[in-house]
């Protein structure tokens, strides 16, 4: 029989391929370690620094000193605890509101055929990507007019600008993944659109709502521009602004220890959520982009 082309390719001894495979594997694991250090070290370092007092902070020992004085100071600091509460209040309210508004819109955009559907989707998408600074003056006026200036509620209202289009978009892609026949069956069974949403889709959408809610929460928790602009006094600030505005008396007394302690504190809940709901978050992020 004639040699097939595939058989004619030159072949080296088996040991060569074994070695090559091991080298590649070794390089991959090395690269993975680098990635882990790159992504995790800054946070680790923030933690290490936040537990060192005085001069120890300036000696770069790699292990934490586990002195929690700064954390105790934070807990005793009513302004910081207040801003933590503000952040929680704003982020939770924003998330709930955006989910409710988003699911309702997503049902219409994902399921009901109406002529302006595509246009509405494009509008929603465009609003989620345009720069917030563009609406700053208009929002400023609106918030003053509503009497919300320097109130955390102002932030809830303005955060809807980014979270509502975003939740709408993601929930629309999630809703589209449900088989259409499920709703057709419900229509035949006599359900109104509202009943379909409440009794058929919502009970099935727990995971999707969780993904979307977590993303909206993170967005709201981390927001800076509006929080900086629409709150004025310390007791109404959210945590990112509070941290951003911590300053020392001079450049050399910059309170890095305290800042790191505060940073670790506000980030801890996020990191816990992220690690626990890793899969759901990735599902939400990619639902919006790849399938969109």
């Amino acid at each position, binding site marked *: 029989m004639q040699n097939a082309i*595939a058989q004619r*390719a030159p072949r080296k001894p088996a040991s060569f391929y074994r070695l090559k495979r091991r080298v590649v*594997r070794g390089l*991959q694991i090395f690269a*993975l370690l680098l*990635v*882990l250090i790159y*992504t*995790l070290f*800054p*946070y680790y370092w*923030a933690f290490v*620094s936040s537990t060192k007092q005085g001069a120890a902070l*300036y000696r770069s020992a790699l292990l934490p000193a586990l002195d929690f004085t700064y954390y105790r100071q934070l807990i005793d600091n009513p302004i910081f605890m207040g801003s933590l509460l503000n952040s929680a209040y704003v982020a939770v309210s924003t998330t709930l509101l955006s989910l409710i*508004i*988003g699911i309702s819109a997503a049902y*219409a955009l994902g399921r*009901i*055929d*109406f002529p302006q559907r*595509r246009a509405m989707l494009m*509008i*929603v998408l465009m609003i989620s990507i*345009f*720069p917030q*600074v*563009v*609406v*700053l*003056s*208009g*929002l*400023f006026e*609106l918030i*003053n007019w509503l009497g919300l200036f320097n109130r955390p509620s102002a932030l809830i209202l*303005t955060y809807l*600008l980014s979270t509502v*289009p975003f939740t709408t978009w993601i929930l629309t892609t999630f809703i589209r993944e449900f088989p259409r026949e499920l709703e057709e069956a419900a229509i035949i069974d006599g359900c109104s*659109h509202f009943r379909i949403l409440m009794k058929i889709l919502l009970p099935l959408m727990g995971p999707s709502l969780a993904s979307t809610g977590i993303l909206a929460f*993170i967005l709201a*928790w*981390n927001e*800076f*521009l509006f929080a900086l*602009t629409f709150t004025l006094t310390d007791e109404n600030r959210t945590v*990112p*602004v509070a*941290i*951003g505005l911590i300053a020392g008396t001079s450049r050399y007394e910059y309170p890095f220890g305290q800042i790191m302690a505060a940073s670790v504190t*506000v*980030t801890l809940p*996020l*990191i816990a959520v*992220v*690690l626990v709901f890793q899969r759901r978050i*990735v599902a939400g*992020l990619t639902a919006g*982009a*790849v399938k*969109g």
Partner: protein
Amino acid sequence: MSARLARRDHRDAWLFLLPVIAVILLVAVWPLARTFFFSFTDAYLDEPSVYSMVGFDNFIEILQDRSWWIAVKNTLIFAAISVAIETVLGLAIALLLNSAIPGRGLARAAILVPWAIPVVVATKMWEWMLNDQFGVINKVLSGLGLVDHGIAWTASSSLIMGVVIFVDVWMTTPFMVLLILAGLQLISPEIFEAADVDGIPAWKRFWSITLPMLRPAIGVAVLFRVLDALRMFDLAYVLAASNENVMTVSIYARDRLISFQELGVGSAASTWVFLLVAFVAIIIIGVLRLDKAAGT
């Protein structure tokens, strides 16, 4: 005739959309319209109701301001370089995490950490690590004998843009990695197996199979990231307040508006930002043909 059945559906659709439309009108369309309106006035923030119309004066004033052009240049440089680095790095990490190696599950979770951390916190963390005297990075560098005294990363006007880009890359590469990973997972493994059996070398497999098939995923990710980078505010603001070397157009507009209380001029600046971003978005969508790739 039976359009009536369809009409009932349409009416329901609008009912479901009512809340979202109300929100969009209230916090997007109306403020946007007011911003456009104010940009033609000489109003000040402390007394917005007192103004007169000044035509295009504000727009011209912005264009004649050297700081504005510096901000535009900074923003474009920042967006171009950071997104370019993120894309390449994100692609590399995604390819790494897509191969079957021990610990990749851990890495996939770890990669989310920089993404979830608030920008302010990330900035403070890196500011501390890059501190000229006590920062761990300078300690490591001098420990390795690479520098003899600490580099003033954040204080030096020539390095600060580099620092901003570096921190941004750290925070947003995870987003790229996740989107590209999702794109990779849409590619059937059989395609790679076929290439393997056919003896296609790894680099060729990357150029002729992986990259073309990832194009839509990368395109969407790049679009999102570029638009996000163009509106960057918090990172540069926290790191350097209004330092001209990293002032972005968002910082510029907010400064005019809030710090200088110039409602009219600030709104005009915001409008220019809007036009700039819209212009770049249209170019990117055109170049990547995303309208076709992401047909909704």
